[in-house]
Each structure stands twice: as C-alpha cells, then as structure tokens.
C-alpha cells in the first residue's frame, strides 16, 4: 500500500512540476527566513547568558541628574570598584574594566626588527574579571594571569598572529614579551579563546587594570567625571539587589563631593539585560539591540512563516482538488475515507519533508552570508542541532495544517460528484477561505513594501539633508604629537590636491560614538544649575574647514595652552534666551575652566539625525587636538598615499590610520541601514512568496476553468475579455488588501519615525506607490497563467469531457 502511495505521489509531483517547484520553493523560503530570523533573535537575546554567574551578575550604572535632564551612563568613576569591594562584604565579587581601547603593540622578530600592530580591542581588567566571567583557557592560570602588573593575555587568534612559530604549543608563548606603545614591556601570562560573539565584553587583549591606573592617576582617582570604567558586581542572589542599591544610595556620600552626591546615583543592571536595553546606550566597544526590535523581528518571522504555510495549504488544496476523479475512483473501488486521508497526508508529508531538507541547506547558507556580511556587529551565528529540531517542529506544524487539511477536504467528496467533476460547484465556501488568505498575505506584502519605501526615504533623508557643515572628501587621521601639527599641515598643503587642513578633537558630528562632554553654567550660577554640553576643540581653521557659519562675533585668533575663548552654537544660547549678538562677550564656566564667548555659529548637526542638536562649545585649546582633517581635491589613491607618506615621516613612532568623514558618518546609521536592508529583503521575499501563492492559485483556477474558457471563446469572447475575467477578481482582492494595509503601515511607520528627531513625513504618494508596485507585480503574475489559458484552442478544452 505504501509503495502504491509513493508511486502515486511521485508521479503526481512530476506531472505538476511547476506547481511542485513553486510549492517547495515557497515553503522552504518561508521556513528558512523564519528560522534565520529566529536564530538571530535568539542569538541577540542570549548575550552574556553563557556565563556561569550570569544570573547574579550586575553592571553598576549611573544616573546623572542635571537641571534640565537625566543622563544615563553605563560607565562609572574608576575608584568605585575598590570602594565597593572594601565597604560591602556582602558583594561576592566586584570587578572593573577600562576600555576596550585601541593600543599599539610591537614585538621584535628574529632579526631584531620591530614589528608594529594596532589592536582595537584592548581591555584593562582586574584579576577579579577572570573569576567573574567564563573564559576558556588554552594556556595560563586564571588565578594569577593578571596579578603581575606587566602581564598580557592574548586570544588564540592574536597569539597566532604575534607568534606564528609556536606550532600549536601555546605553552611555549608564555613569558614572551610584547611592548605596549613601544615602551612598556608586557609578559604573556595567558592564551584564551575569544569570547563568543554573543558577549558584551569585546576584547582580544587583556592587560591588568593596575597598569591602567598607574598610567592614568588623575582618572583613576576621580569620582566626579564620566570615565569609561565598567563596574560589575556578583551577588549571592537576586534578593540582595534592591537592598544593596538602597545601601549604596546612602553610602556614596562618603566618597562623592556634596554636589556630585546630589547629582549622581548608582543602580544595578542585570548582566543579561544589558544587550537589549537602550536606556544606557551601547556598552563600550559593543552594540545594543533593543528588545522591541527583536520582538518585531520575531513577529515578522512568524508572519513570513504563516504566509508561506498558508500558501502551501492553498496550493496543495488546489492541486488536490484536481484529483477529485482519483478520489472518486478510489472510493468506488472500496477505499475508506481513512485510507484516503492517510494517502494524502503521506503524499503531502513527502513534499514537506523534502522542503525541510532544502530549508536546512538554505538556512546554513544564509547564516554564513549573514556572518560574513554583517561584520559591523561581528555576528557569530551558528547552525545548531537545536535549530534543526526547531525546523522539524515547524515541519510538524506545517504537516498538521498543510497535509491534514487538504486530506480531510478531499476525502470528504462524495464519489459520484467527484467522478462527475462537480466539486468546483460545491467549492465556493472553500474559495472564500482562499480569497481571505490571498487578502491576508497581500496585506503583509504591502506592509513590507510600503515600510521599505518609507525606510528608504528616511535613509535618503539622512544622506541628502544638509548637516550644516561640509563633510565631502574629508580624510581624518589621528595626530599623536601636538608639537608637530604645524609641520604636518605645511607639508600637506604643499600638495595641490589638498586644499585645507584643520586640527581638532573631532569632526562637527560625533562619529565612532566619540564626543567630549562637559557641563556649563554662567559664572554666577551654582554647580547644581549646570547644564550638559558637548565640548569640541578646534584650531583657527576649523570653522572655515567645515563651512560653519558665524552668526555673530568672530573666529579664534589662536589656540592657547589655557583656553580663553569659546565659540558656541545657537542651541546653547536658547538655555539663556540670548540672541547671538547678546551672547558675544558673555563669560561661561565649564568643567575645564572659564572663558568668554567670542563667536556664535549657526546650528549644525553635532549628533546624527536620530538625536537633537545639543548645546556645543568650541574651545581654542591646544589639548585634545588629536585629529587632523584633510580636504582632498579628488578621492584618488595618490592623495591618500601622499597623506600616508607625510604622516609617517612626521609621526615616526606610530601606525598610520585614516578614515573618510562621510564613511564615518554613514556608520552612525548602521542600525537604520540594517533595518532598511531587512525591510528590502523581507519585502522582496514577501512579494516572492505572495506572488508564488497568486501564481499557484491562478494556475489552479485556469486549469479548473478550461472548459468555461473554451465555451466563452466559442461564444465570441476576446482574449482581453478572458484576461480581465480572471484578473479582475484578484485585483479586487489586492486592492482590498491595500485598503487594510494602509492604516496599519501608516501607524507603524510613524511609530518608527518618531525615533528620529529629524525625519520625513509619510505622504500619500509613498503609500500609493507601494500599492502600485504590488499591483503591477500581481497583474503580471496573474497574466502568465491567464494568457496561456486564453490563447488555448477552445476545441481541446471542450473535447475533454
């Protein structure tokens, strides 16, 4: 019997090659997309869960109460860790890290030549770090690895990079020397596996925290600033969290100055929540993905799966109906309904199992693609057995719906009617169901398409909206030595391709997550009345270089060792309701000192478009002029090579790095680009799946109505009339779907756009063009089948009976 089923199933699949292919293709795309999204979501919501102590580990976060706002910081003052450790015996473990930062390392090769490497993920960590977090050791002892101040721990990859000759014997690397910034010799005390991708601690080198403290005595003893010290505590159990927070609240005055004590409060954030919580921003060196995004992604995944399954059921039922004759014969010949159900379930299950196999292949290919293409967030997605299990589960679910439903519908046919092909007359109720399924999926298709259009336009807005400064063809490179800046500038300007050179702490818009912060007040105000501002250091060419427009006052005349002049932006003036003219000559106190406002510049976007323009103060300071901005005439390799040459001649002891400002700005929209790519891919997928469904349904209907088309043609219907006879119905459904989709997408996209301070408005034409795209594609899809049916010779159609 089974053999008979397999035979019938196989011959049927071959007979309906196109439909089978559509069916398998559609469902496997649906399943694999859903799987990839779910794997991604799972990965993104499992950050740092793998540590043994993850449940009881908390990050100390800081709320900074200013008169006009509260700032939420994920880093704390450096002395906090040891203070907590000394004063709270109930805390199991306190650990603190600084960084990750970028540092330069060098080793001597066999010929005693110095080889330099730049490493961007250097983490300073205390010995407790190794006991708090799970780290896989290849060589070295976690109890002592960071005890000596001049030690260094490398990841496997770096060990291979620095000491390629070790031949897998990592023990032989232990004790070798690596120089930090060409001066401090550090001894290798451990080789570890890199942390898995789903960890917020990103490092490939660990250096003792003590080393950092000794080299930064001012930072490490200062309680009032916001320095990049990340503090973690391990508690015995969850209940201790709230009491501890309360205790810390009353304890902190022991160390903080009274005005800081009022302003700063500490809280404990569970380690496992760090990655999905936006309040505190990205951890240093890492990124965050809000749980909202993950939730939406999961919903999207389920939608795609549902569409695919619905289509599958739809097509399968449609195909099965054309086998009503077989059902009739089998029933007459003595088949029980149970036998028939079994046969069809069996048959459909074969297709589904085939589809599952294909999905597994697609998923692993897609994951590979994601890992390589989404390098910005350093994905390390893996295809695990549990995922195959999940696919199987989806498969069972699909079998349950897609195999059993048609089987039951089909097996219920009365043999006489089945034999006489009367089924379609009775199938009107069925058809209504199918109609609503089509509407449902086209609602989703249009949701995606319109969303993709809106996101694309918002992205376009980022790109084309004026930022208030010029960013074109600007090369940025760090400048390690202040004393050599003028020489560097002069040599560069000798080249015709370079028109302007300026130095400062950073470009007008904060890039790479780097911005100097300070607070400001009028000298007569108290510290508590201070407001938050961005501090920027620029040389006398800065305004001209970036085309920043002065509304009042003048530019700096020179940079000084002790700054004495400020240029501020319009937004800052709003805090005091000054006009630009009024502001000139006013004195302002910032954390770093006091100076006079000599100029007011027109507002420019000092933050990316997601955020508002914030008060900004430009200082004529010699410190922090650690970046050079070079405007090149043409972005060719010659000028870049030239800059590199000049740079290396000037700053002999460092490694040259550069970045285009435009690229750096682009990177500020990584998440948005991700969303855009996501929507583009998903709308294409949704269209594909939706059209496959439409195509399949059309082919079913045309094959069922061959006779009707024949009669109509004999009666004199033109091809066009026959086409419209088929297409009209579907177009009505697509239009209905559009009407349903519009309010939903309008609401959702407005919600998304609200996340941006600077944004586009959703207009009617965006909605309409989304509808139009879907409409055109579906007309084309429908036409394929109906043209074929309309062109066929009616005689053949009518002779069949």
């Amino acid at each position: 019997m089974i053999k008979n089923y397999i035979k019938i199933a196989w011959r049927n699949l071959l007979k309906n090659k196109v439909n089978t292919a559509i069916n398998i293709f559609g469902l496997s795309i649906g399943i694999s997309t859903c799987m990839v999204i779910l794997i991604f979501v799972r990965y993104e919501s499992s950050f740092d869960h793998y540590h043994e102590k993850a449940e009881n580990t908390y990050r100390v976060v800081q709320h900074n109460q200013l008169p006009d706002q509260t700032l939420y910081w994920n880093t704390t003052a450096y002395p906090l860790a040891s203070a907590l450790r000394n004063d709270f015996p109930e805390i199991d473990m306190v650990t603190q890290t600084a960084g990750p930062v970028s540092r330069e390392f060098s080793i001597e090769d066999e010929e005693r030549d110095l080889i330099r490497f730049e490493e961007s993920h250097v983490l300073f960590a205390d010995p407790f770090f190794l006991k708090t977090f799970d780290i896989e050791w290849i060589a070295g002892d976690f109890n002592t690895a960071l005890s000596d101040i001049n030690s260094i721990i490398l990841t496997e990859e770096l060990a291979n990079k620095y000491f390629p000759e070790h031949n897998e014997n990592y023990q032989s690397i232990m004790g070798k020397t690596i120089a930090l910034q060409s001066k401090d010799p550090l001894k290798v005390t451990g080789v570890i596996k890199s942390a898995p991708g789903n960890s917020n601690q990103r490092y490939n080198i660990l250096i003792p925290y003590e080393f950092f403290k000794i080299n930064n005595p001012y930072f490490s003893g200062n309680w009032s600033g916001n320095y990049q010290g990340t503090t973690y505590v391990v508690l015995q159990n969850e209940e201790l969290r709230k009491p501890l927070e309360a205790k810390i609240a009353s304890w902190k005055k022991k160390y903080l100055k009274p005005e800081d004590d009022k302003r700063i409060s500490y809280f404990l954030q569970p380690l496992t929540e760090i990655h999905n919580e936006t309040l505190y921003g990205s951890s240093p060196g890492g990124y965050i993905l809000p749980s909202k995004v993950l939730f939406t992604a999961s919903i999207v995944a389920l939608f795609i799966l549902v569409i695919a399954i619905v289509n599958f059921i739809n097509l399968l039922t449609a195909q099965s109906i054309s086998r009503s004759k077989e059902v009739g014969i089998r029933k007459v010949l003595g088949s029980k309904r149970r036998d028939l159900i079994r046969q069809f379930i069996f048959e459909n299950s074969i297709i589904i199992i085939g589809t599952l196999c294909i999905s597994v292949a697609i998923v692993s290919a897609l994951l590979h693609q994601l890992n390589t293409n989404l390098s910005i967030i350093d994905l390390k997605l893996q295809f695990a057995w549990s995922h195959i299990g999940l696919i199987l589960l989806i498969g069972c679910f699909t079998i349950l719906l897609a195999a059993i439903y048609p089987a039951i519908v089909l097996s219920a046919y009365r043999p006489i009617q089945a034999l006489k092909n009367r089924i379609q007359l009775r199938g009107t109720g069925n058809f209504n169901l199918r109609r609503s399924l089509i509407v449902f999926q086209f609602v989703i298709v249009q949701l995606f398409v319109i969303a993709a259009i809106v996101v694309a336009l918002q992205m376009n807005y980022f790109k084309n909206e004026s930022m208030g400064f010029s960013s074109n063809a600007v090369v940025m490179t760090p400048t390690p030595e202040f004393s050599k800046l003028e020489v560097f500038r002069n040599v560069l300007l000798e080249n015709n391709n370079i028109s302007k050179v300026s130095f400062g702490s950073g470009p007008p818009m904060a890039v790479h997550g780097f911005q100097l912060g300070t607070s400001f007040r009028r000298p007569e105000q108290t510290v508590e009345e201070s407001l938050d501002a961005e501090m920027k250091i620029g040389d006398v060419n800065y305004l001209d270089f970036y085309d920043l427009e002065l509304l009042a006052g003048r530019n700096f005349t020179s940079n000084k060792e002790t700054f004495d002049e400020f240029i501020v932006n319009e937004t800052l003036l709003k805090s005091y309701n000054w006009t630009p003219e009024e502001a000139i000559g006013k004195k302002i106190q910032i954390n770093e000192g006091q100076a006079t406002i000599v100029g007011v510049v027109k507002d420019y976007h000092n933050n990316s478009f997601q955020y508002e323009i914030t008060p900004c103060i430009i200082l004529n300071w010699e410190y922090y002029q650690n970046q050079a901005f070079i405007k090149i005439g043409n972005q060719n390799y010659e000028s870049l090579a030239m800059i590199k040459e000049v740079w290396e001649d000037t700053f002999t002891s460092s490694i040259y790095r550069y970045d285009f400002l435009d690229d750096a700005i682009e990177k500020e929209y990584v998440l948005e680009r991700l969303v855009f790519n996501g929507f583009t891919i998903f709308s294409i997928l949704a269209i594909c799946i939706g059209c496959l469904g439409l195509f399949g349904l059309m082919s079913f209907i045309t094959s069922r109505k061959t006779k009707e088309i024949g009669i109509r043609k004999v009666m004199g219907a033109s091809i066009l009339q026959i086409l419209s006879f088929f297409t009209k119905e579907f177009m009505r459904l697509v239009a209905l779907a559009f009407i349903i989709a519009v309010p939903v997408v309008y609401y959702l996209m407005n919600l998304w756009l609200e996340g941006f301070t600077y944004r586009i408005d959703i207009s009617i034409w965006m909605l309409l063009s989304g509808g139009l795209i879907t409409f055109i594609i579906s007309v084309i899809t429908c036409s394929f089948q109906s043209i074929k049916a309309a062109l066929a010779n009616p005689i053949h159609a009518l002779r069949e009976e």
Partner: protein
Amino acid sequence: MLLNLKNISKWVHSGGQKVFLLKDINFWVNEGDFISIMGPSGSGKSTLLNVIGMLDDFNEGEYTFLDESVHTLKEKHRANLYKQYVGFVFQAYHLIDELTVKENLEMPLLYKKHSASERKSLVGDMLDRFNIVGKKDLFPAQLSGGQQQLVGVARALIASPKLILADEPTGNLNSKQGEEIMEIFTQLNKEGVTIIQVTHSEKNMAYGSRVINLLDGSIV
C-alpha cells in the same frame, strides 16, 4: 434473490417543488440476471444505477441487498457491502491516470487487504484473461478507448463481485470495441455474474435477459 427495490423514490427540491428523480421504483434482481436499464436522457437511469450501487441515497422506500436492508445501514457498512459484492464499470472508464494498467488493476485489492502474492496472482489472472499482459506497464493515456474499457472491466471483476454495474460501458467506444465489451459481459453472465447495465442502444439491450424501461423516474 440478489437484491430487491421496494417503492424507491428520490427527489430534489427545486423552486419549492419536489422534482422526482426516481418515483416509486419496484423491481428485483436474481443472481445470474443480465438486466438492461433503458430510457431517454434524464429519465433517471444513472441515478437508479447509483442507488443500486449504494453510491447514492434515496429518500423513500426499501432496498434489500442479499437480505441486508441497505436503507437502515450506516455509510460504513454500506461501503463494506458494495466493496465486497459490487464492481463498477463507467462510460468514461475512470482509470487513474498516474497508475499503470497493472497498478490500476491492483488498486481494489489494496483496499481489501489482500496479500502481495495474492494480488500478484489475481492481477496476473486478469491480465491473462483479458489478453492485456503486454499492456500491463502502460499508462491509461497510452491505450485506446476500447483497451481502457477492457482494463475498467477487468478492474471491476478482479475482486470477484457478485454484481457488475455498468453505466453506458460502450458509450465512448466504436461499434467494434463495443461489441467486444458486450461479448465479455455475456461470457461473464454465463459464468454466473449478475450484470446490470444502463444503455441507450437497442443493440446492447439485446444482450440482456430483461429490460427495465424508465421514463421521468418511473418504470414504464
């Protein structure tokens, strides 16, 4: 007596009125009969045949098949009954397109849970008997109409039914093929198989031993 129909009526409602498809049908069939049901289009011939074959319901009356009262039986028992005793032959052959001749013949046996070796020998017998051994691996589309109907008859016979119901078995065939099929029916009848055929043709009617004439759902 093989079967007995008493006062069988079947109707549908159309525009608030009862339209009779069968009206007060009374007749019986003995084992070994060869009965032809005649009548113009729409007179209810096929409906009557379907009722006899238990593929269709009726609204009124009593139907006894081998001493079982069909009208009181549940669907499942009814199916078992016809599965065991009745073979069907259709005008449009109704072979399964995706199965070969051999597989088509084998199908009824699958539903009767015959063992594989039994099925093989029964199929082999039938192929021999109808001289279609050479065609056993062909698909229905590769056969002529006459050959397809031959397979259809063979399939109806394979489970050795007591009764064969044939709905215009020669309707799609040319006269020579038709004659062949009718010869086979005569032969089967001689071997003791009861046959009820629906036919339009006077010629085919002549093969039968008894004729039932239908007009507008009633026997005339």
